[in-house]
């Protein structure tokens, strides 16, 4: 009388909890996911090709538009990659300010993740609280470089301008309130029974699978691997900073939540160290007006909020623009873990898994 068969459904690309235009093809047996195929490319703009036709100075503005919630991290990767290609030394003060702003951006990105992830799973209040703190950081970005999201914050060789007057005071005000706000989120979520039911043991992926798939960032660290580019290959002023790499052994959604919260605390520590030990001096190195490269190739990776963000440049002789530019985008690589996480689990866990991977489609499709 009853027929049982597998059903194929689409999640997205307009579904609000797919964080943009991610489409996931799901083959379901009842409520269990049998097969999952992410379909990407709805936001493809050909950024890599565009950057090959622009000079090294101009290309930076397109990096803002990749991971648009962490534009400053993208800027850092671009400018440091180009500086590596041309052997430019950046002043120490500029490196400190870069470190500070990148860590602020990490907090802003993680807050947006926390807000939307909690909203997907059903906790509305955290969304509003997290956006409130993110607003303070966006105000700081606006004071520093004039834009909130598409920052174009750094320049090749240093910074365009020094910190604006009042910036340090405003940043210290944020530093003073942030730990207490972070505890507030924890009172809302960490011991919340509904939150734990939706996250503990959900979307597991172990360390071997993470490494085999190339997954980096908080997802890898929540599987117990203490790999962080800030420690492994320190750039900017990270070598002078004192911080820890938070890890968890459980490798589930709840562990990733705890790791990201711990990372926000570490970022808070780094910002405090930058503010206290801010050196005096110039913020811009002497660089030529036109950068002409030799035949050379460079790969430079930084720790973006989502994982390892790498820029690969190939320069040609006398060229003012890169012959080839490639971005190793963390969201793109991390998304590969999605089928591994959710096949054999329930449909409701798909939403939690997409949220916990913290993907940004602007970066995946580029």
């Amino acid at each position: 009388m009853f027929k049982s068969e597998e059903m194929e459904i689409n999640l997205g690309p307009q579904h609000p909890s797919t964080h943009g235009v991610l489409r996931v093809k799901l083959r379901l047996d009842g409520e269990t996911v049998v097969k999952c195929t992410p379909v990407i490319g709805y936001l493809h703009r050909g950024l890599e090709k565009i950057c090959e036709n622009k000079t090294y100075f101009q290309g930076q503005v397109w990096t803002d538009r990749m991971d648009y919630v962490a534009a400053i991290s993208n800027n850092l990767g671009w400018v440091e990659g180009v500086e590596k290609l041309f052997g430019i030394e950046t002043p120490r003060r500029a490196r400190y300010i870069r470190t500070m702003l990148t860590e602020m951006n990490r907090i802003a990105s993680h807050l947006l993740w926390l807000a939307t992830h909690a909203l997907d799973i059903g906790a509305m209040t955290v969304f509003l609280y997290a956006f409130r703190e993110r607003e303070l950081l966006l105000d700081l970005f606006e004071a520093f470089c004039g834009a909130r999201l598409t920052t174009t914050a750094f320049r090749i060789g240093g910074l365009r301008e020094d910190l604006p007057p009042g910036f340090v005071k405003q940043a210290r005000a944020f530093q003073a309130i942030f730990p207490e706000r972070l505890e507030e989120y924890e009172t809302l979520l960490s011991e919340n029974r509904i939150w734990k039911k939706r996250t503990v043991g959900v979307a597991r992926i172990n360390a071997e699978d993470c490494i085999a798939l190339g997954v980096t960032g908080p997802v890898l660290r929540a599987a117990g691997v203490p790999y962080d580019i800030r420690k492994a290959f320190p750039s900017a002023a990270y070598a002078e900073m004192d911080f820890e790499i938070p890890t968890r052994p459980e490798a589930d959604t709840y562990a990733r939540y705890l790791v990201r919260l711990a990372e926000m605390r570490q970022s808070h520590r780094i910002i405090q160290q930058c503010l206290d030990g801010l050196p005096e001096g110039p913020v811009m190195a002497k660089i030529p007006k036109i950068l002409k490269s030799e035949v050379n190739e460079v790969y430079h990776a930084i720790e973006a909020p989502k994982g390892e963000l790498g820029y690969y440049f190939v320069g040609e002789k006398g060229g003012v623009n890169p012959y080839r530019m490639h971005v190793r985008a963390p969201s793109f690589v991390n998304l590969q873990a999605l089928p591994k996480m959710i096949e054999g689990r329930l449909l409701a866990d798909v939403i939690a898994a997409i949220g916990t991977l913290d993907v940004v489609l602007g970066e995946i499709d580029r």
Partner: protein
Amino acid sequence: MRLLKTLIPGDIAAGLALTGKYFGKVFFSANRKKVRAHLKHFTQEYPEIPVRLAPRFRGRLTLLKDEQGEIKCVCCLACEKICPTQVITIEKGKMEGRKMPYPVRYDFEMERCIFCEFCVESCGFDSIILNHQFELAAYNREDFSLGMEGLGQNMFAPSPVGKYSVAED
């Protein structure tokens, strides 16, 4: 049994206590006096009260004039060259009684502008800035082509919908 465990009001009470704390805070402070101090209120009554923007805010491109009311631009074309999206077009010209070249046309295609401020940075004569106007919507596509003269929008006039923008400083 499991249902009973879920319905134990401890967690609900703890959650509601926090909500109540914030409700009290907001209820007793908001709308009584319009305190808009930093870190206190996060929502701004934007259309009624003009927003406060950072001094470095990047808005619409504007040509500057010197004390005599003459355009400072000398057509070095640095901004045209650096612009990542090629939105600036300058036509060089001569003017009576002026040594430096004078822009006959200075066109700015705002629809493609990404507000990166590279043009301002490249200018060696401080003759352009990005001002603080951010209400730049228009009904027609032609309105986004700004020139030195024009009926709808031109470089020197404020944006037609910019009623609430902050004043220049």
